[in-house]
């Protein structure tokens, strides 16, 4: 996939237009900030869209308490560097019930800590429009979603009854029980994101660059032991390997890739060669991953 400067410019203009339409149309918009590369691009686009004024909505991070330590420190640095209003929400009930990636199945853990956590936060603050950094090239049901995607009561997505979205004339009106999810980088590809980060020198999380980190193997996937909560199997000691991450998430559920890429251009070269989708580095329960579509109908991003 080629990403020329002209393509990036066109994608950028489209995204900025969507962000402005969002800020103008909703009573209480919010931007989901998940600390990864897509969020970094989204944040950069938002800074551009409203410049010279500050970003007119807060950022929301749903913290499952299992994120990489470097994600949290990076998040806080970014927030203070750009003077952002950052809201962090954790599903406390889930924490109190002892829900972790190790005590529950992965899909149940994801549902409680991510989906329910997100719904709680949106309801608590009364956000009517939530901006996310999902792209259509990520997954088959995302490839079907509108840019302005209506959610029914309970934040449910109804993929069979999506509101028509014609031209660039967006219908942002909502009934009281509805809310909106907004995807400004729908048309971008993974490579566009990397090219754009490189072109605009956008700061991204150090976990995207290769470094010696302690890992253990689980099947054919390599997991980083980020803190003492990771259950090691009798007598196992983590080995240091030169690794990086292709996507970021909860550390026990995000597989590393072996890599020597320590600069953006090296990462770009690597990503251009890879023929597997990003989702290949996410852990799932055996092969019965809850489909993205199912998660989305429950309110997931």
């Amino acid at each position, binding site marked *: *996939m*080629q*990403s*020329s400067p*002209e*393509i990036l*410019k*066109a*994608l*950028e*203009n489209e995204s*900025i*237009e969507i962000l*402005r*339409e969002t*800020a*103008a149309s909703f009573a209480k918009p919010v931007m989901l900030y998940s600390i990864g590369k897509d969020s970094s691009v989204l944040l950069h686009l938002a*800074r*551009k*869209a*409203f*410049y*010279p*004024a*500050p970003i007119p909505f807060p950022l929301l991070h749903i913290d499952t308490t299992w994120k990489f330590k470097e994600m949290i420190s990076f998040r806080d640095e970014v927030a203070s560097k750009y003077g952002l209003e950052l809201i962090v929400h954790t599903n406390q009930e889930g924490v109190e019930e002892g829900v972790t990636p190790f005590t529950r199945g992965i899909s149940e853990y994801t549902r409680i800590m991510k989906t329910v956590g997100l719904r709680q936060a949106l309801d608590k603050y009364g956000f009517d429009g939530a901006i996310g950094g999902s792209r*259509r*090239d990520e*997954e*088959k*049901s995302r*490839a*079907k979603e509108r840019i302005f995607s209506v959610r029914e009561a309970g934040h449910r997505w109804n*993929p*069979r009854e*999506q*509101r*028509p*979205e*014609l*031209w*660039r*004339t*967006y*219908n942002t*009106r*909502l*009934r009281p029980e*509805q809310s909106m999810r907004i995807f400004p980088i*729908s*048309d971008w*590809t993974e490579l566009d994101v990397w090219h754009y980060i490189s072109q605009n020198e956008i700061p991204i999380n150090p976990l995207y660059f290769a470094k010696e980190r302690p890992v253990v193997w689980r099947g054919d996937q390599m997991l980083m032991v980020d803190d003492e909560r990771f259950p090691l199997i009798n007598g196992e000691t983590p080995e240091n390997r030169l690794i990086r991450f292709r996507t970021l998430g909860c550390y026990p559920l995000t597989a590393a890739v072996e890599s020597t890429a320590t600069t953006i251009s090296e990462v770009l070269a690597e990503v251009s060669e890879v*023929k*597997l*989708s990003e*989702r*290949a580095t996410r852990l799932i329960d055996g092969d019965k991953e809850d*489909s993205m*579509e*199912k998660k989305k109908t429950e309110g997931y991003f």
Partner: protein
Amino acid sequence: MATPKTKPLIRLLTCGSVDDGKSTLIGRLLVETDSIPHDTVATARSVRRGGSTIAAGEIDFSLLTDGLEAEREQGITIDVAYRSMSLLNGSRLIIADAPGHEQYTRNMAVAASRSDVALVLLDAARGVRSQTLRHLTICALMGVSRVAIVINKLDVFDYSKEKFEEISAQIAPAVARLNIGEHAIIPVSALVGDNVVFKGKNLDWYTGPTLLEYIQNQNLAEDAMTSPHFGIQYISRVDTFRGLAGTLVNGKFKVGDEVVILPSKKKATIAKMVTFDGELTSAGHEQTLNIVLEPEVDAARGDVLHLATNAKPPADRFTANIVWLGESELIHSRSYLLISGSTSTPAIVTTIKHKINIESGEHDSARTLKMNEIGVVEIATDSPVALSNYSDSRETGNFILVDRSTLNTVGAGMIVHALRRSENVTEQAYEINAEKRAAQKGQVGKVLWFTGLSGSGKSTIANELAKELYALGRHVYVLDGDNLRLGLNKDLGFAKEDRAENVRRVSEVAKLMMDAGLIVIVALVSPFRVDRDQARELFQPGKFIEIWVNTPAELCAKRDPKGLYKKAAAGDLPNMTGIGQEYEAPLNAELVLDGTLELRVNTDIVMEIAK
């Protein structure tokens, strides 16, 4: 002039009737150009959709775009899937795989509205079907500039040239009639893989381009653009900075250009063009920016900037093509929300000129448009809007209609031309105004709008009220639904669209009478909420008082003063409110009267606010 710029993003859609092989074709195109991650392709080898006959281990190409569970179960596409790939010239191709099923025509329209190139598929065995023609018509209306007719499944006919020619001849009249300019006819087998990316051996008689070559050869350049249009999306404010944020389309702006703000027609000069990446001295098509005007005249979201030398006056009457998307039909005279870019205003369809017969292209007369029907209508907007003709600009000639109660998008519109530019009609301001006229009568003008079922007691209460107000020396007039149907509204029946027009006329008359200083009492069933809300909008807050005479339907039917319920029960009045048609109770009425109470009691209650 410089050579026109190649478009960096080219959008393509596949369309045609259900099962003609659109998803299969796109899947193959993506796989053979290595545009799909290998693990995704692997899944398409192992998973099967309902009723699939594809051998185990082979790729089911349709699964690469049919991503919804319901699509896999039913083996059809329901909504558009978007996939990207690179073209040889470095442009990006964004593919929209649209559904063929008639029920999901609106989703096909979603894809067509932004596409540059259409692949219209035909199954060689089934030939041209009405859905093929519907899609072709929508492509033509929506300005998809390049169309390839792709004749698929030729494997079934042993790649027969005669079959290809037979189907080509079948579609030719429609292509000619719809004025589809640049088009090609391409034979393929999406399933076997002939002539999609690779030529293959089976179509040796065919000498034209493969499908991919055809797409590569579309040299899509930006159109020559001379009518810059900047829609204000958002006002950006910080400290003393006040920028108008939006996207420039259809031309260029330079610092120093004189611009007109529409619809107010105020003039100003572009002092600065601000972006995160620095200030610009000039900006072109699709550039997002902040414009600072000098002087800083008033401008709001939804307003539009044009060059002063090239400004199109806004208009409030248009002829437009409409593709109806709503589950419930288009109601003439009902108020919808018209949205175009960031501009929105209430609007009504004043006339349905005709609907288009998909099969023949002929104009059929129509009183309404049902879902998936296409028609030509006249539209009146509440306030003037700066829309262009769709044939001049897709970006500024489009609009959608939104149902005001469900808030769903129900219509996709394309401006044919403006009927009345606002330069022709300017409201005259008179010095003797409503307040002065009312003061002369020692009263405050207002409208008391009684709504409720037939027999609920509207007219009885209105009559009592008028008598008492008269006795107090007030100047009042009663507009009674039945009486008006003898004259002003005698051309109207009781269908939904007629009721909407009835309410519209009565509300306009009430407004004139209030303007004359009168207290106006309206007694009208007015069963539909949107229609009443539309009436309310004509008035200043506090001037329109909605009074719901809430009488149980059984009691109304028992009273039956005009014998209407009896007739309806016998099936003679299909549109009787409460029987064949719904009564939508007010949600925010200023007053709700219990229709079972004494007349005296209810009159007293209303008198409190009427005096």
